[in-house]
């Protein structure tokens, strides 16, 4: 649902749900995910409803994502880094970290 105005930023290679994606240095994980695809970035643990980032400043907690195996991280508060693995969450997390 988002597009980059200019594509001249330094490329940072990450994966989103296993898919290789070229993000740009400085972007938040949430922004990179939204630039990659529109629609839900997670489903809620209460009812499985589709949600996506709302405030992008760390207040709404809608941007919860699994980053490098750690679930429930606020994607808007983390900048992309080379080799990062990002997964969209479905429902509640597991107690263990993802492998």
């Amino acid at each position: 649902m988002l597009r980059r105005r200019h594509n001249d930023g330094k490329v940072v290679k990450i994966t989103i749900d296993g898919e290789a994606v070229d993000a740009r240095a400085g972007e938040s994980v949430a922004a990179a995910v939204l630039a990659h695809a529109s629609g839900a970035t997670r489903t809620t643990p209460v009812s499985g409803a589709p949600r996506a980032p709302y405030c992008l400043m760390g207040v709404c907690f809608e941007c919860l994502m699994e980053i490098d195996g750690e679930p429930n991280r606020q994607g808007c508060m983390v900048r992309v880094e080379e080799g990062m693995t990002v997964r969209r969450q479905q429902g509640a997390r597991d107690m263990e970290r993802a492998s």
Partner: protein
Amino acid sequence: MSAPEYDIAIIGAGPAGMAAAHEAVNVGLKVVIIDEQDAPGGQIYRDVERVAMERRHDLDVLGADYKYGYGLVDGLHASRVTHLAGHTVWQIERSGTVWCSDGKKAKQIDAKRVLLATGAMERPVPVPGWTLPGVMTAGAAQILMKSAGMVPDGPIAICGSGPLLLLIADQLVRAGADIAVVAETTSFTDYLRAAPHLLRALKGADYLRKGIAMRRRLKESGIEIVSGISGLRVDGSDKAQGVSFKAGGRTRSFEAETVLLHQGVVPNTQAARQLRLEHIWHERQHYWYPKTGQNGSTEVEAIYIAGDGAGINGARAAEAAGRLTALEIACSLGEVSRADFDLKSPPWLSELDHHQSVRPLLDALFPPPNEILNPPDDATLVCRCEEITAGDVRKAAKLGAPGPNQLKAFLRAGMGPCQGRMCGLTVTEVLAAAHGKSAAEIGAYRIRPPLKPLSLAELADMETGDGDVTLASPSSGP
């Protein structure tokens, strides 16, 4: 017990925090500034340094008011402040101890004074469909522009009211975005009527002039601006597909992939509430703000507040307040005499006054509409995290829940990850309407630490010193 390591711990590196840090260091205080973002600027000047150095093309779109923040960031770097970037504060004690975390380790910071400069957040806009993917705040769109140089793809509907609405529409147009409609809940004719008189009378008229100019530019770009709308809803099933609303006696719908909502900003009071500071209800703007005394002081000796977190007055007022509060703190610590304060403060007092003076006009022109404060449709979600509707809240009110805390106990409203940030104001309004009482009588959620979630590992690994704690089984024990 040894003396605290710092004179002041400043929480938040937005305009108030940065200005306060700079001023405090100038008068010889030992300062630490703690900010959850990894770069200074708060939200209003978010990533201004990075944009200035790496994305100058975005700088032009964002405008002069944004560029101004670069000076403050530069000033922060130049001062000898300890800057704990990327650190989230999760508990503040009235004694001046601040607990924060870098994501891996919990840290204890001891200071003689704590200055809360945590700023504002967007007022939640609970309309039907507001939780659908593709719906964001107008501020979020600005943050995407500032921190990532991104704009929403596809048609954008911008809905709400307030000076920021037109600003964001203007910025997006200049950034090449496709605006489907700008839909204002305020009625333009009303404020046009009011404006001529007030333009003359008020000092802060430049805000209004800018707004009128932006409006004209948007219309010239062929963008439809609809005023006096009501019954706003976001359409779509698993993502936003458009908006509908009533205007001029008929229902109108616009297709959109992105919907930006905005109904002004409100103070972020989580930290002040966690400190159990007294709060006052702002009748006209429908928000809570912490009670402050002279120059940002509070009922607690070690705690001060400056900036939008103390009441919405904008970035320039926040900067002035930050400086004044830093000087006031310095006075309280005996580092600056009152006479010196009276010599240094006038330019900042005047700046503060100038920017505060426009507020009554803005408040009168852009009041949040009642249907946003107290959503009429029972099915509208109020607590996004726990998926509690306005109807659920009304039912609990009938059951006797007198306020937000009993409501929390009944429904779990406010118990999700956002800890009541998104639903607090709406819950207070819905309960007030249901009970026929004022918001001030209804009250607000009690906020307890942690201010933001932190891992059990960090808590378990903390060294807290005081060893006299007993853990007991619920049955046996001492």
